[in-house]
Structure formats: C-alpha cells, structure tokens
C-alpha cells in the first residue's frame, strides 16, 4: 500500500517501477501510468500522470528527476511528491486545489539506464549509457543533449567527458522521448521542474547565456517565495537566480529547452546538500530534504496558478 512503501530510503529502479505499477492499479482516480518510449538499453520510460480526472481543460506541470544518475535524492523526491499528493489530496486544501486544477506529469527516473548502472556498478555514474562510436567511453550528459545552443559553452565534444553533449541534439532516446512529449503537450504544460543535486539552489533560465528572461518578474517572485518557504521548514538556505550566474553557464540543458519551446515557467532544483555528503546524502536526510522541497514546489505551483499570466 501507499503507506507501506518506504519513502525514506533509496530504491532500485525495479522497486520504483513496481511502485509505479502498484499506484496505477490502486489509485486510478488520481494516477495514470504510461510509457513515452524506451531507453538506450530498452527499458520503458514511465510517467505518472497525477490529478483529478476532468473533462474540462486543465493545464499541467511536468516534473522530472534523475537526469543525472548519481543524484539519487532526485528520484527520492519525485516519489515523495507522489506520496504527498495522494495522501493529502483530501486533507490539504492546497494539494486538493493543485490536483483539481492541474495535471502533474511525474518522471521519477529520467535516466533509467544510468540509474540502474549507479546501483549495480558505479555509484558515481552521471551520464546515460549509450555507446559512442569509435570510443571506449560510454554515455552522454542528458542535460547537455537538448537543442538549445547545443554543445556550446559548458558542454564537451569529447565522449569521455562527463559533460559530453552527444553526437547531435536529442541523440539520447530518453531526451528524444521527453522532448517529443513536451512538444506534443506544450500548449497545456505551464511549468517544467527538473530535480538535480547537489548545491541547494533554485534556478531558472537562462543557463546558456547571461540574459534576463522576458517574464522575469513572475519567475523571480515565484523563486523568491519558494526558497523562503523552503527555509521556513528547517532553516536551510537555498540560493536562487538565473542558472548562468547562480551556478555556471551551460548549454543544451532541459530547462532552457523547455523555456525556449514555449513552457513559460521552468525551474531546476539543485537539492541538498552543499558538499558535506554530496551525492551520498544519507537516507535519514531524505525526509527533511523532501519535506522542505515539497513546500517550495507547492509554493511555486500556487504562485503560478494565482499570480502569473
């Protein structure tokens, strides 16, 4: 059952996919699972569509986790989000409003091949697992493979580098599948949220250049309120701002691509911590990390629903 699944431990890919199947079977009123394609190694790319079914037009929010395989707190948060949505739909007016007014497309593990590899072989693997012709090194950085100033600053053309952009944009089947889905549904997808680790930041476009986005006002105020809400839980500080100046310039990111392709509100979270544990965030910190992040995500969602055009 929903309450028996342990959301305070890291789960294998198989466990996560079994959990998704289970929710699809037991919560059909609010959950619908479907696949948008297959990974390089042939694994299904599952999405959970959350929200009260409605014949009326509803906008949507896309959330993905685990673009980079070793950032395990990302998929943990995606699972936490789903759990919270289903458990508090009736008791929490904010969640009820979110589920009633919006659909949420949740991709708990974007880079399924890499995530599986990080469980079985190399805990610190980052990229996908595609083979690169003529090179012994495998994988492409799935956050450098999008067609937005592709393979420019902040990305590498060398297959052995961790920021390898790929042989061409959307070369990775995972990236292509998500891009196709977002292109098809962009008319009603209002926001794109991507979860990474670690740095404790809330970022918005642009990543690939130093420039201010046209709808800066609404995006910035959403980010400001979100980090304040996050900090109110345990006092953890997140920096926020455009990715290029808050973190570093990088081209070919999913956030920039989603923005360029018409999704007006796009954010990337860099979750806990700032380096004490790094990618090895202990399981005891899953709950506080997800609890504070949940508040930030609810804040962003409600701000966009009420305050932004």
């Amino acid at each position, binding site marked *: 059952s929903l309450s028996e699944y342990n959301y305070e*431990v890291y789960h294998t890919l198989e466990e996560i996919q079994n959990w998704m199947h289970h929710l699809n079977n037991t919560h059909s009123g609010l959950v619908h699972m479907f696949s948008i394609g297959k990974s390089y190694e042939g694994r299904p790319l599952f999405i959970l569509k959350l929200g009260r079914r409605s014949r009326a037009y509803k906008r949507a929010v896309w959330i993905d986790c685990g673009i980079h395989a070793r950032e395990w707190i990302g998929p943990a948060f995606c699972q936490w989000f789903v759990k919270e949505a289903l458990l508090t739909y009736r008791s929490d007016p904010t969640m009820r409003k979110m589920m009633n007014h919006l659909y949420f497309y949740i991709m708990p593990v974007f880079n399924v091949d890499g995530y599986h590899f990080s469980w079985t*072989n*190399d*805990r*610190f693997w*980052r990229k996908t697992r595609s083979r690169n012709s003529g090179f012994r090194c495998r994988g492409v*950085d799935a956050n450098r493979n999008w067609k937005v100033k592709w393979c420019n600053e*902040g990305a*590498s053309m060398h297959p052995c*580098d*961790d*920021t390898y952009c790929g042989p061409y944009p959307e070369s990775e089947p995972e990236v292509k599948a998500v891009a196709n889905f977002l292109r098809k549904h962009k008319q009603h997808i209002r926001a794109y949220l991507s979860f990474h680790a*670690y*740095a404790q930041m809330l970022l918005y476009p642009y990543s690939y250049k130093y420039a201010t986005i046209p709808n800066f006002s609404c995006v910035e105020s959403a980010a400001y309120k979100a980090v304040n809400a996050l900090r109110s839980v345990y006092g953890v500080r997140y920096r926020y701002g455009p990715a290029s100046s808050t*973190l*570093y310039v*990088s081209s070919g990111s999913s956030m920039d691509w989603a923005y360029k392709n018409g999704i007006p509100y796009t954010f990337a979270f860099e979750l806990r911590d700032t*380096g*004490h*544990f*790094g*990618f*090895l965030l*202990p*399981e*005891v910190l899953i709950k506080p990390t997800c609890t504070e992040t949940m508040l930030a995500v609810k804040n962003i969602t409600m701000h966009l629903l009420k305050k932004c055009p």
Partner: protein
Amino acid sequence: HLYSNRYTGDKVIRLIPNTEEEAYALKKICHQLKVDLWQPSSVSYVSEGSVTDVRIPQNGSRILLAFLQEANIPHKILIDNLQKALERERSLQAQRNRR
C-alpha cells in the same frame, strides 16, 4: 562487497583556488589525474574563488594532496574513504530495516 570495494581509499576533496594561476594549475592536475568532478560538472568552470569538489582514487590523492600543500591551495577533505562511507550508510540502512 559493496561495489566490489572499488572505492576503497577514494577521497572527496574540496579545493578553492585563490588566484587564476592556482585555478589553471588545478585544472591541469585534475585533468592529468583524471579526477571525478563532483562540482562543478566540468573542469573548465574551475576559476579563482570557485568551490571545486573532486573524487580521486587513493594513488592520485597522495599526489594531489602533496601538490596542494606545496602550492598552498586551500583544501579540505570532505570524505576520507568513500568505500567506508558507503558501507557505513549501508549498515545503518540494515539496522533501520531490522528495527
């Protein structure tokens, strides 16, 4: 053995170059030692004042630490033995499961 003990002796070290010269030297040695960059994601981002976390195997860490001390580059060992850190977390996990 967790991940076949492949991380035995691996360290995670935080480096903060004070000058562009130090940053350049760090980029060079990181490239030579083939470190795994935890942050930032690419060695090209390493610059004066930037926080850089690297994972490096045992052999490489001796060379890197000697270099850092000689060059007087501020640094801190975040994780002294990655394999032990992974195993510690795994044993805590087992204890929690038993409880």
